[in-house]
């Protein structure tokens, strides 16, 4: 895979100037790639971080300058041609050219697709309801921020990470919040039951109305959504609705170019697509994970960065780093959630610390370890950074640990992980 410096490709084009794309071009320069780099993105302005959009930025606790991944001057300094506000509309894989929305044709030696994902739409919503919002990009966050104020009623459809983070932020801003989740529990696809149950109670204690098993029959109102109605007859009046029911990988460009796609662009462990000169990274890529074997499409900053590092190393002709344990974080109220690994073939679940408690004041600090044949495969930590770090290390090393010692808060975690 590694190339001799002599035949390093001359021009790398990256489509999508989000987290993965913007980091990839920076890594290319860090790794000594000297050819030309073009970063094409359809959003206005310079690349920025999405995680704060549901947290610090929404709360007004951070600035646009801090939201940016790097200052505008960075791209010129590093000789990275940033083409913002332009969409890639077609790829001619035989001629190795990308067609942009201004009709320009960009030639490439290596192409990287980092087109991300976009919010799934709620089918019941009539077109043109201006107060039905989604959250992916900065303009979305600006609209949502304008909808949040003391006493404003926000109905959030979807109890996933984005829905719950926005619920927490909206409560901190004094809005009245209802979360409607169609599954029997919050975060059903991405967290274990103890975490779901804990967060359910925590949000309720902070004044959020949480409804699980919610079956929405109508979003009522003309011109504006006025209420959301459930099959059981309940009706939640609202000033705005936030839909957070998952994301769809942005594969249109790849599909039209004939690349293999199946819930994402299908890539190998090295992030190469079915065309040897096209890579895909981040939310849009479905990749056989080196630590798990199965093909996964992970939607997270750490995963997009791991893949950006991997592809930058391949293009720059440098040895790739070791595979990274997938992980994720989420901030809600004063809770810091950190999770690592995947709950694969779990035969034992261990809880360390105390998830119980009631009222708004209790100090939550606990972790859930998922074991498979005595080895940790997944850790979910709430306000327990040590458990997260130890779990991540144990998942990586595959060391066996006695469940009883993991569960015992008196046994130091650094000892267990060493």
């Amino acid at each position, binding site marked *: 895979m590694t190339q001799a410096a002599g035949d390093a490709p001359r021009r790398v084009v990256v489509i999508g100037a989000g987290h993965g794309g913007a980091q990839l071009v920076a890594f290319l320069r860090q790794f000594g790639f000297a050819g030309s780099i073009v970063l094409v993105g359809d959003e206005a302005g310079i690349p920025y971080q999405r995680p704060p959009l549901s947290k610090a930025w929404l709360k007004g606790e951070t600035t646009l300058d801090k939201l940016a991944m790097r200052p505008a001057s960075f791209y010129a300094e590093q000789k990275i041609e940033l083409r913002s506000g332009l969409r890639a509309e077609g790829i001619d894989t035989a001629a190795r050219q990308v067609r942009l929305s201004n009709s320009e044709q960009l030639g490439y030696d290596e192409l990287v697709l980092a087109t991300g994902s976009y919010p799934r739409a709620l089918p019941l919503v009539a077109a043109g309801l201006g107060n039905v919002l989604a959250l992916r990009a900065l303009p979305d966050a600006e609209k949502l921020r304008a909808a949040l104020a003391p006493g404003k009623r926000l109905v959030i459809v979807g109890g996933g990470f984005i829905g719950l983070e926005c619920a927490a932020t909206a409560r901190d801003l004094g809005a009245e919040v209802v979360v409607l989740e169609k599954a029997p529990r919050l975060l059903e696809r991405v967290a274990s039951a103890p975490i779901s149950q804990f967060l359910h109670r925590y949000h309720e204690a902070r004044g959020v109305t949480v409804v699980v098993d919610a079956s929405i029959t109508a979003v009522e109102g003309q011109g504006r959504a006025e209420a959301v109605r459930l099959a059981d007859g309940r009706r939640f009046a609202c000033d705005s609705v936030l839909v957070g029911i998952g994301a769809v990988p942005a594969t249109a460009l790849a599909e039209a170019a004939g690349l293999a796609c199946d819930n994402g662009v299908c890539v190998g462990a090295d992030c190469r697509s079915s065309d040897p000169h096209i890579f895909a990274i981040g939310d849009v890529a479905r990749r056989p994970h080196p630590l798990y074997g199965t093909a996964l499409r992970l939607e997270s900053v750490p995963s997009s960065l791991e893949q950006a590092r991997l592809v930058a190393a391949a293009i720059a002709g440098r040895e790739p780093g070791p595979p990274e344990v997938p992980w994720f*974080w989420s901030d809600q109220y004063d809770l810091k959630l950190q999770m690592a690994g995947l709950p694969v073939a779990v035969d034992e679940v261990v809880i360390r610390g105390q998830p119980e408690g009631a009222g708004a004041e209790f100090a939550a600090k606990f972790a859930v370890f998922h074991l498979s044949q005595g080895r940790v495969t997944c850790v979910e930590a709430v306000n327990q950074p040590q458990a997260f770090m130890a779990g991540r290390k144990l998942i990586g090393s595959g060391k066996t640990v006695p469940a009883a010692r993991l569960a015992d808060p008196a046994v130091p975690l*650094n000892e267990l992980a060493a």
Partner: protein
Amino acid sequence: MPKITYISSDGAEHVVDAENGLSAMEAAVRNNVPGIDGDCGGMAACGTCHVYVDRAWLGKTGAAREGVERDMLSVTDGAADNSRLACQIALTEELDGLVLRLPSGQH
């Protein structure tokens, strides 16, 4: 604008003119210093910004703070008493000349 020197494990030096108000992680990322990726954007959640503060500067930066930062470092490979998470060091004029060393193996 405080000048910060980052020294990688192979001895390479990166000197950066940092804006006041940034963290030592942000200043490194903005200048593409290899070895400080700041995956979590400064939330003290990832541990990819671990640095050793040059001992002469420890008095000014202080040691890792009680709570999340110390908790993260307590389970980080190679962490020592002068270890900090760079995202938790706020840069001020007072830190002009600060020297930070990077651990080996940090991508």
